[in-house]
């Protein structure tokens, strides 16, 4: 027995991880892909049939699908870019020594530990057009009132603000960890070489930090792309289809119309987009590094 373990140790150690990956990740993905090739629907009583790419053809002929892709990209792009800029800024401030620094760090964690449904409810109240704090704040700033979630044009930015509120701290903490790991000497060299504060940031900090920032962007990008909880609790894709992102669209197909085959094809499209996007970013990073 012992000799068996000794000889096969390189298989035995990764075994639990392999079992986990196969059962919890590979299997659901494979299953979803299979379902997307069938006409499985709760509303029809006939047996589930293999229909090939029919669901995908229907998907690519559905204007709602393209609307969803567009909205998802819009939401993700807006939320992640603002989160990155703010997160880096906050990290730079937190990287200095000041009193109460740990307290501020603690506060930053709060939005991340709150439950999404509670966040959704709180922000829905905030965005309430007549009594909500949102319009009150705009009024104080002398700006015109907004319809927030109730208008086609402002609903995505309003949702992005919630995502930014919730996830900027995470970007800040990732970047802060990156900053702490930066070497100290190049800064002294840059000071002697005559760089001012901005030039030090532009030519030393930013390039040295870019791998960390990229990690934060990829993590946030993937997550924002799949956002469901906040959007579902606040607008459920409305008004009309104005905030129906891919995930919401797939959910509506599956649990609104019970077309599991069609919903699965939308999810496979979502997966392909996330995967493609991530690979693109990683490829960009590699070419840019050379």
């Amino acid at each position, binding site marked *: 027995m012992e000799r068996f373990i000794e000889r096969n140790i390189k298989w035995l150690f990764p075994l639990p991880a392999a079992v986990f990956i196969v059962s919890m990740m590979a299997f659901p993905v494979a299953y979803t892909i299979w379902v997307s090739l069938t006409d499985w629907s709760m509303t029809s009583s006939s047996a589930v049939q293999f229909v090939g790419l029919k669901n995908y053809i229907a998907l690519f002929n559905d204007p709602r699908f393209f609307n969803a892709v567009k909205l998802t990209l819009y939401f993700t792009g807006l939320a992640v870019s603002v989160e990155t800029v703010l997160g880096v800024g906050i990290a730079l401030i937190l990287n200095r020594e000041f009193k109460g620094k740990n307290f501020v760090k603690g506060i930053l964690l709060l939005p991340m530990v709150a439950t999404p449904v509670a966040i959704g409810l709180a922000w829905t109240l905030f965005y309430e057009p007549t009594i909500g704090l949102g319009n009150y704040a705009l009024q104080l700033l002398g700006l015109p009132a907004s319809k927030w979630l109730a208008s086609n044009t402002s609903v995505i930015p309003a949702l992005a603000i919630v995502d930014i509120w919730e996830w900027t701290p995470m970007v800040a903490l990732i970047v802060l960890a990156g900053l702490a790991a930066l070497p100290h*000497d*190049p800064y*002294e060299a*840059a*000071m*002697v*070489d005559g*760089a001012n504060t901005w030039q030090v940031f532009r030519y030393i900090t930013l*390039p040295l930090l870019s791998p960390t920032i990229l990690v934060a962007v990829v993590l946030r990008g993937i997550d924002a792309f799949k956002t469901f909880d906040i959007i579902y609790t606040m607008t459920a894709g409305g008004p009309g289809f104005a905030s129906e992102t891919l995930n919401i669209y797939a959910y509506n197909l599956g649990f609104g119309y019970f077309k599991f085959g069609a919903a699965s094809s939308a999810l496979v499209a979502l997966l392909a987009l996330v995967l493609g996007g991530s690979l693109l970013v990683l490829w960009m990073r590699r070419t840019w590094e050379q």
Partner: protein
Amino acid sequence: MKKVVCEHIVKRFEGVTAVNDFHLEIADKEFIVIVGPSGCGKSTSLRMIAGLEQQTSGDIYIGGQKVSDKPPRDRNIAMVFQNYALYPHMNVYDNMAFSLKLQGVDKKEIDRRVREAAEILNIAQYLERKPKELSGGQRQRVALGRAIVREPAVFLMDEPLSNLDAKLRVQMRTEIAKLHHRLGATTIYVTHDQIEAMTMADRIVVMKDGVIQQIADPQTIYDKPANRFVASFIGMPPMNFIDCRLEKREAGLWLVRETMAVALPAAWAERLSQRFGQQVVLGVRPENIIPADAGGPLAAKVEVVEPLGAETLLHVRLDGQSLVVKAGPDYQPDEGQTITLSFDMNKAHVFDHETGTTIV
């Protein structure tokens, strides 16, 4: 107008005084070398002149201007860091070009200066590489190149040759000397290599425990060390020290131990007059001890013979004390043999037994 003046600088880190009362006036175009054992405050002194470390008290002037509270970029200095401090994300070319780009120097001029420096430093073939793809010695040369392309008023160099092999070190030493002649920049150079100090310096500053021991030109440091520490630190192999008692006899002044007795030059009588009967330390450099087969007054036993080609080092025991003697290449006694020594007393020193200060 590139004088550098350090006025009684003190640097304290929590609890430790790293540099104490550092006072140094450096003339324009002068090449100053700071030497001293590890941890004596050389780097700290240099970093205060660079503006990377704020002195606890005292003032610094560069080119007649008080720079005590100015950031490094307002001091017109270039520095070679002990640990290179290269920009890890830039290739060698950009590392060297960075300061010139910041100054807005014309692209062609940058290219000319970087390539020229790379040529001098023998790193032209590595211009495209990142620092992590270079050896320690190559990085050190890039750090040197980054400083010389700037043609600054003052060069600060913190052990810039410490990671080079012996041959390259000699070569770079002459390059730095040539560069100093050409650019005429005031240079403050930290090292613990005494050959670098002796060969390159206009004046040497010897430090110990954060305190300057002596400031003088190399020959003076060698011939007239201010104290026993300087005497032992400069010179290879180091000076021999022999504890003795000073005695006045009819035939003049004598330094005596159990069996040994050395007569002192009559001229020293006045300076030693307060110390008759006291313990003192005799210091004699290895080359100022002359060995002979027999006949001299001091009998010593040869313990080890080290032929070095151009000379021979003898480790001998004289009256219970180990001494090193530098003899000619042809003089190679057997180990265990008894020889006799004579000291060239005109080049010997007498130090205070407790404080180590030079008496003669």
